[in-house]
């Protein structure tokens, strides 16, 4: 068999393969670039950006939980201008697509950032409507169909790159929210962001996180993420980028079968800096071994029980 086709399209942007680093876990690529060749990645979703620089929350910002972590970084980032100046030149050296993850407190914030980033070498926008660690905006938009629809529509009108809407799992019904994104004109949906959680140090009686609560990620949330990807796949037509606890090929396959066109890997980088590289290699081998000529054939290939 010829080499299988691993490439996927998000809007009119072609990713060489469907494996993307999840926003907030991979910085701007520099650090993990010492461990893996960034050219191999399908895309790099950079740390969530805001219009102005943000300090984020006070530390501790991480707690370990069974098969997962809580984080409460709170969108520490240098701001969109510093990103353009200091990070884009570095990232454009590599083949992998640059995905600017952006978060705002108001619709206007989002629009300003998109305008600023429109004329840069950023390839895709990932609109973060789901950050649980900042008090204002963001998550509020992501909690209702209407909110998602409005932000999406406003951004789509001006965006010169395809837009991915990143959804929060902290909702009653993820499918209606996803429909809001589709109806607003999203080119793709990414999910899931973290689930709000808390861990308490029983000795001090204080939450481990200085922010008290944080976002749960890692393998523990995978069954929830798989369920949501599957549900959303059944209700929208645009591509889904699935994530939540991926550690290896097997986990990645679960997401593709459930309905993902591409995947993101976050937390597991902390344990295994090579996880993306491994998954890409193993995925290609899997397609060869199973005579699958195109990764697209896997997407949504789930066979439900009656």
């Amino acid at each position, binding site marked *: 068999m010829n080499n299988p086709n691993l490439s996927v399209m998000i809007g009119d942007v072609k990713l060489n393969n469907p494996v993307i680093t999840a926003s*907030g*876990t991979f910085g701007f690529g520099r650090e993990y670039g010492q*461990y893996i060749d960034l050219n191999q990645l399908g895309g790099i979703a950079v740390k969530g950006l805001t219009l102005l620089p943000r300090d984020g929350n*006070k530390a501790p*910002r991480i707690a*370990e939980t069974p*098969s997962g972590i809580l984080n409460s*970084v709170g969108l520490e980032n240098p701001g969109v201008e510093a990103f353009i100046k200091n990070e884009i030149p570095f990232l454009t050296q590599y083949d992998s697509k640059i995905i600017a993850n952006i978060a705002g407190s108001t619709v206007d914030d989002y629009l300003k950032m998109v305008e600023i980033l429109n004329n840069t070498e950023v390839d895709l926008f990932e609109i973060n409507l789901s950050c649980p660690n900042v008090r204002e905006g963001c998550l509020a938009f992501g909690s209702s169909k209407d909110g998602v629809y409005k932000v999406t529509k406003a951004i789509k009108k001006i965006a010169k790159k395809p837009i991915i809407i990143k959804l929060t799992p902290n909702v009653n019904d993820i499918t209606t929210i996803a429909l809001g994104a589709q109806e607003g004109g999203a080119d793709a949906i990414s999910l899931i962001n973290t689930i709000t959680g808390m861990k308490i140090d029983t000795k001090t009686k204080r939450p*481990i996180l200085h922010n008290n609560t944080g976002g749960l990620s890692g393998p523990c949330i995978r069954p929830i993420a798989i369920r949501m990807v599957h549900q959303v796949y059944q209700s929208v037509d645009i591509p889904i980028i699935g994530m939540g606890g991926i550690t290896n090929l097997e986990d990645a396959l679960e997401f593709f079968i459930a309905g993902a066109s591409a995947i993101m890997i976050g937390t597991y980088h*902390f344990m295994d800096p090579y996880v993306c590289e491994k998954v890409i290699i193993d995925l290609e081998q899997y397609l060869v071994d199973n005579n699958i000529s195109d990764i697209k054939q896997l997407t949504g290939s789930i066979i439900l029980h009656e």
Partner: protein
Amino acid sequence: MRHELSTIVNIIKINDFNVRLVLQNSDIASKATPGQFVNVRCCDSNELILRRPISILKTHGEFYDIIYKIVGEGTKRLSKFSIGEKLDVMGPLGKGFTKESTDKKIAFIGGGIGLFPLVNAVLEFKNCESDFFVGFKSKKEMMLIDEIKKTGANVYISTDDGSVDYHGFVTDLFIKNIKNYDKVYICGPLLMEQSCVDILRKYNINGQVSLEQRMGCGIGACLVCACETVHGIKHVCKDGPVFNIKDVFLKEQLDE
């Protein structure tokens, strides 16, 4: 660059809680500078999804030593490994202690397990007049003294219960013996570090302090290990763990 596993060549139980590992990995051993740390995978299971940061105690040839205190689940699992087994260790990480050639009179102040990162410094920082102040809870928990004395440093010991030498805090012991040091290196519990920094500021002495913070990636990518400095938010794993005492706000880190 793919990091190689580290082989456990020796395991030394120092006391009920502290275990010293002698590890073989020429890359880590050759690159490590005083005050740097490694990030250790403590078990195969993904139940614990984070590595554990542990200071590099010393290096010798293709070997390096670490001492870990068994405090929670991760270090407990680490204690299940046997000689000959391989550990998945990333490192050396972070920015360690530095010494300018003009630093001749130096001091170290270590509290409890905060002693560990200072050991590699006292071993490596040659041609100095070194005072080494170290505080333990009690005699039972005393360790590494001979190893430090061998470097020629003057060792001052305090114990909380008076079971060895000075009865009281290591900071008080330090004040009693303070000289016009060129530089002082500090590592210990936050409160102790805070007092030391206050003293040094008062006496206008330069110093460096090693901070602890909960970590995710350990390499500067996830931004969880934030600490406030005069230069804005920095990250303990990448910009530290060692910081100039002029730059950090330790008070802000103490729980309100």
